[in-house]
């Protein structure tokens, strides 16, 4: 069986056409990409996270890590210790197993100061969406989010679950630098920022949480698949929490 582009059928689950198959492909000599469909949706993201968890439970010799994305999992392996064909067989069987719910979904309450000096684009976003700042903050904070993937910058967390009516095109000209912990909307996506960096997204708030800290173990607070609720706080609360975060305190509340 040629596994270089193996297509798996999932018969055990009543899934939509988009979810009906996973495709495996080599990425150079160190990577194996498992793709689930070509459209971003919660079911696909869940599928990716389930496979990621199954893979981490499997402890396959030679697997270095797996990079979670909205619709795919990129398994990184050491070609001295694992080979593509063997790994593809293992991944095929893992991906074909009936999906089980994650053993435990971690839930977080993350404080966010909307608007003011931290919401550089909040007014503009409100104009474009035809909402008041308070309504936008309430709507953004009221949604139920999942950490879909990390990328762009270390610890930069892409969230799935943004209500579709809050989608906003990216800014025409990116900013060279935005605050660490910025909360922003880019197209149909929203994210919790990590360290300072450039951004073309619409910045609407900021969390005092230090989402990435290389001196801490683990360096990131969240894991792909974690559930996140955003909790509006005032600028005064932000500064108080930021000071506590600076001294190493965890200012996000883990609720489950």
């Amino acid at each position, binding site marked *: 069986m040629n596994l270089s582009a193996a297509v798996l059928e999932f018969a055990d689950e009543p899934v939509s056409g988009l979810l009906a198959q996973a495709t495996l492909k080599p990425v150079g000599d*160190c990577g194996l990409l498992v793709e689930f469909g070509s459209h971003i949706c919660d079911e696909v993201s869940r599928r990716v996270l389930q496979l990621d968890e199954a893979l981490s439970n499997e402890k396959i010799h030679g697997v270095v890590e797996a*990079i979670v994305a909205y619709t795919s999992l990129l398994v990184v392996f050491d070609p001295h210790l694992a080979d593509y064909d063997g790994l593809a067989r293992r991944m095929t069987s893992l991906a074909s197993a009936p999906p089980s719910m994650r053993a435990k979904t971690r839930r977080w309450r993350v404080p966010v100061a909307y608007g003011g000096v931290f919401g550089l684009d909040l007014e503009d976003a409100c104009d474009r969406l035809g909402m008041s700042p308070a309504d936008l903050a309430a709507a953004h904070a009221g949604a139920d989010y999942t950490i879909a993937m990390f990328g762009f910058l270390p610890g930069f967390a892409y969230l799935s679950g943004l209500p579709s009516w809050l989608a906003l095109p990216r800014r025409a000209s990116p900013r060279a630098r935005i605050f660490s912990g910025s909360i922003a909307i880019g197209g149909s996506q929203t994210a919790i920022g990590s360290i300072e960096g450039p951004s073309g997204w619409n910045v609407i708030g900021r969390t005092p949480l230090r989402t990435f800290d290389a001196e801490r173990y683990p360096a990131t607070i969240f894991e792909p698949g974690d559930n996140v609720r955003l909790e509006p706080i005032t600028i005064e609360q932000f500064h108080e929490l930021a000071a506590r975060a600076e001294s190493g305190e965890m200012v996000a509340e883990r609720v489950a």
Partner: protein
Amino acid sequence: MSVLEILNCGPATTIQDGGRPGLSRIGLPSAGAMDQRALRLANALVGNPPHAGAVELAFAGLVARAIGGAMQLALAGAPADIECGGRAEQSHRTFILHEGEELRIGAMTNGIYAVLAIAGGIAVPPVLGSCSLDARAAIGGLVGRPLRPGDCLPLNGRATPFVSRWSNAVGLDPLVPIRVVVGPQDHAFTERGVQTLLGRPFTVSHGINRMAYRLQGSVIERKPGIELISDGTLPGSIQVPPDGYPIVLMADRQTIGGYPKIATVISADLGKLAQRCPGQEVCFAPVTAREAREIACQVGVSDLNVRQGVPPGLERYSSPDALDLEAIGNVADAVVDACDVTTWEIAAAAKVSRVGPRNKDA
């Protein structure tokens, strides 16, 4: 404890080792030496473990001074003229810098990256398992940034006497094809687009740094109307943005990319590509995933061709191409604009004031 004091260096001089693999899932590139062959070779010459931390030079040379004791060093990768305490030395050969003496390394005479290893290694604490600088995350290296004049590199004490060693040079043949595995998103391109990548020569642009190398040449044709979703990248991923010119992701890459990836450079060849200068040619040659694995495994067994003593007779080594040194430089993997246009111009200007006599065929 002896210290190597940096008196002068280029803007993209950094500490790099084998990298910090395993953290791409939280958005961290693995960083590490751009040419892992050069890292392994420089370390082998001075008797260090293959992936120990060393100083990576990009284009520009370096001036440094030994403080607190003598040290043994070796430079591998892109060749440069070396003057050590006033004595002329060579790349790919150990030399000793005595207490108080100055080391002067000229600009690279060929290639881009050279690695300076010091016997015993550099005593900097690893961050997330590696001392490689990741400039974007501001972690690793001496203090989370490239080296600059005035920095003092603390060195580990050495337990063994200095042994003279030499080796063949790292292969820098600019005409060797760079091998790729096609995909994973080749379906986003027309057949002609894929054939353009594999059949036409490209040229390295001035837009190169530790994150990515932008190439110029024929436009790679994409299929219209293919929806693209950001997904994981590897060092070696070849992205094609809407302008149709390929971008090869390197050690400091973004871990998630939104452009379709037409092919992936195999790990054994990424260091070779890293050494191609702006204006030099790049041809891609396809291999299957299975062939790519065989090549990777050969790299591991052939290992380093380092010999004790001094090279017989001649100062020049036979043929760099005869060398069976290859790279693992793969998953090992960190935003230093090593080689943007400005740096290139600085480096080019620096070549005028190169130290020591120039080897005519370096």
